[in-house]
């Protein structure tokens, strides 16, 4: 840009800030650091921060900021040219035990033992696809635009699939997931997690479990495909490096496997379409869908009301980051009960929930501060909402209304997705704050 700059970053992001500066070509950028967090400080406390020290260098902060703008540049700070990052040697030779440690210590695994990717195993894995090993599959980044985008080939994906314990027949699905450019490990502080959903003939072909324990560790493809996505995100996108490319403060246990599931298509009620058909694919297409969110609530509850009403109440009182999207995972018994109550498709049920769920008063006002001011000034309907006290507000959260501040969507659709799976051993269901990201075909990678 050509202007001397002093970036200020809180101490929680030291590694992220420095690595980001380096990847953008300024490894010696003069970043000044502040205590963390800053958002909860009063103005007076913030001023005291200015009078204190940079917690990284322990030097007085304001003189450091002024130095950043005025101290003459060093030779390193004036360097130009192209640097090719070193990713290490092409191969490692050691005992199996030592190799496990090398891969683990260099953050190339999910910290569980891996299948060591020998050339022989990689070649066997590559037989799972007709694509050439050196074909570029795509790019991957921990946060596109903010973190570097790495490029990777079919061979790279195959190596990581071996490490996860996958079989050649799993490779097309893993390639399809990779080609989306979506990382399993997103850099956000909010600890994102993912769901992988398989639909179509692929599920039976590779023996995905969608019966009893459909979301648990009870089948090889469910386990290794989900695991492969996490491992390859680290190695093919530089994702999942705490403090550098991963900032999730609590992290998520779901990241180990990314909830790799398949829909129980053969138990869908009449008229209910498989998820991939809802998204425009043919029933005979094999498709993997990616969902993004944070958490799942596995609900064990025997209501005296119909399940669709119970879930409607759950949706009203459920909240999470964003608060405006949900995915319901229904055992086939729950889906059949909803069908018996007149819901002839997933869409009808989803629309019912979007129209009938409300918002708790505290949540509504906490997320609608501008409307709160209008309510206090007597503007309707907010003034009437305020008179309702603690009662649920008739504000329907679960619609795709577009980005905040963006143009309003003319006919917003329900943001509630429905997946049917499970072994029919009881009328249970799970719900969470996941939203659909994309659905992609698998067969093109066979």
């Amino acid at each position, binding site marked *: *840009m*050509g*202007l*001397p*700059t*002093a*970036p*200020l970053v*809180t*101490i929680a992001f030291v*590694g992220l800030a*420095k*690595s980001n500066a*380096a*990847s*953008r*070509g*300024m490894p010696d950028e003069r970043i000044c650091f502040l205590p*963390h967090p*800053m*958002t909860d*400080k009063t103005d007076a406390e*913030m*001023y005291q*921060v*200015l009078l204190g020290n940079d917690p*990284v260098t322990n030097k007085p902060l304001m003189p450091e900021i002024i130095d950043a*703008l*005025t*101290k*003459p540049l060093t030779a390193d700070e004036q360097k*130009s*040219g*192209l640097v*090719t*990052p070193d990713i*290490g*040697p*092409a*191969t*490692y*030779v*050691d*005992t*199996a035990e030592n*190799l496990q440690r*090398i891969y683990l210590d*260099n953050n190339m695994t999910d910290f569980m033992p891996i299948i060591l990717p020998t*050339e022989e195993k990689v070649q066997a894995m590559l037989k799972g696809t007709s694509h050439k090993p050196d074909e570029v599959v795509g790019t*991957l980044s921990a946060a596109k635009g*903010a973190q*570097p985008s*790495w*490029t*990777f080939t079919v061979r*790279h994906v195959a190596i990581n699939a071996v490490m996860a314990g996958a079989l050649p027949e799993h490779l097309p699905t893993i390639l399809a997931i990779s080609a989306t450019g979506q990382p399993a490990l997103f850099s956000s502080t909010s600890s994102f997690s993912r769901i992988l959903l398989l639909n179509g003939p692929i599920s039976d072909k590779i023996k995905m479990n969608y019966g009893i324990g459909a979301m648990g560790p009870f089948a090889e493809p469910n386990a290794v495909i989900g695991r492969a996505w996490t491992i390859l995100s680290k190695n*093919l*996108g530089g994702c999942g*490096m705490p403090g*550098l490319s991963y900032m999730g403060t609590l992290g998520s246990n779901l990241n180990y496997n990314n909830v790799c599931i398949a829909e129980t298509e053969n138990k869908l009620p009449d008229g209910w379409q498989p998820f991939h058909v809802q998204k425009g694919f043919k029933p005979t297409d094999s498709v993997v869908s990616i969902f993004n969110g944070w958490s799942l609530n596995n609900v064990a509850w025997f209501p005296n009301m119909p399940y669709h009403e119970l879930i409607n109440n759950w949706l009203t009182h459920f909240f999470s980051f964003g608060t405006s999207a949900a995915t319901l995972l229904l055992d086939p018994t729950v889906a059949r009960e909803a069908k018996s109550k007149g819901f002839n498709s997933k869409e009808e049920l989803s629309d019912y929930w979007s129209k009938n769920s409300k918002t708790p008063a505290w949540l509504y006002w906490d997320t609608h501060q501008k409307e709160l001011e209008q309510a206090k000034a007597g503007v309707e309907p907010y003034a009437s909402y305020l008179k309702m006290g603690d009662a649920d507000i008739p504000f329907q959260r679960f619609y795709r209304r577009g980005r905040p501040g963006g143009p309003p969507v003319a006919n917003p659709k329900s943001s509630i997705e429905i997946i049917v799976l499970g072994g029919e051993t009881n009328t249970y269901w799970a719900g969470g704050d996941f939203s659909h990201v994309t659905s992609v075909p698998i067969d093109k990678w066979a």
Partner: protein
Amino acid sequence: MKINRRKVLSILGISPAILAGSTAVAGEKKKKPAAALSTGFKIEAVNPKGMPPPIQLIPMAPRLSSLDGKTIYLVSDGFAGADRFLAQIAIWFQKNMPSVKTIYRLKAGSYFDDDPKLMAEMKANGNAMIMAYGH
């Protein structure tokens, strides 16, 4: 807090410690397992990493000889708190270096995005920038 330069490098695909305890065989892909040693058979495994992009080093902008009489843009990336903290910096300059003129701006877009319009304004009217990231 000590900065772990090795960690910083590793996000760029650089793995300075990766050879510890191992023998690297760069460029060889089909070597047969090595002979047995007293600690057991050695085997050869391939590097699973993809291809990080090359990095174009950018020379930093020349620094100012002093801030006296200069205009400094105080830029928030939009995270909560950055605006209030930058306001305190403006107060500090008023109290301690009154010849410095400060101008506050909120960068457009998410923290990922460039704001070419603001960059052009600062280039035309400013001498330096202090940018604050929230949290």
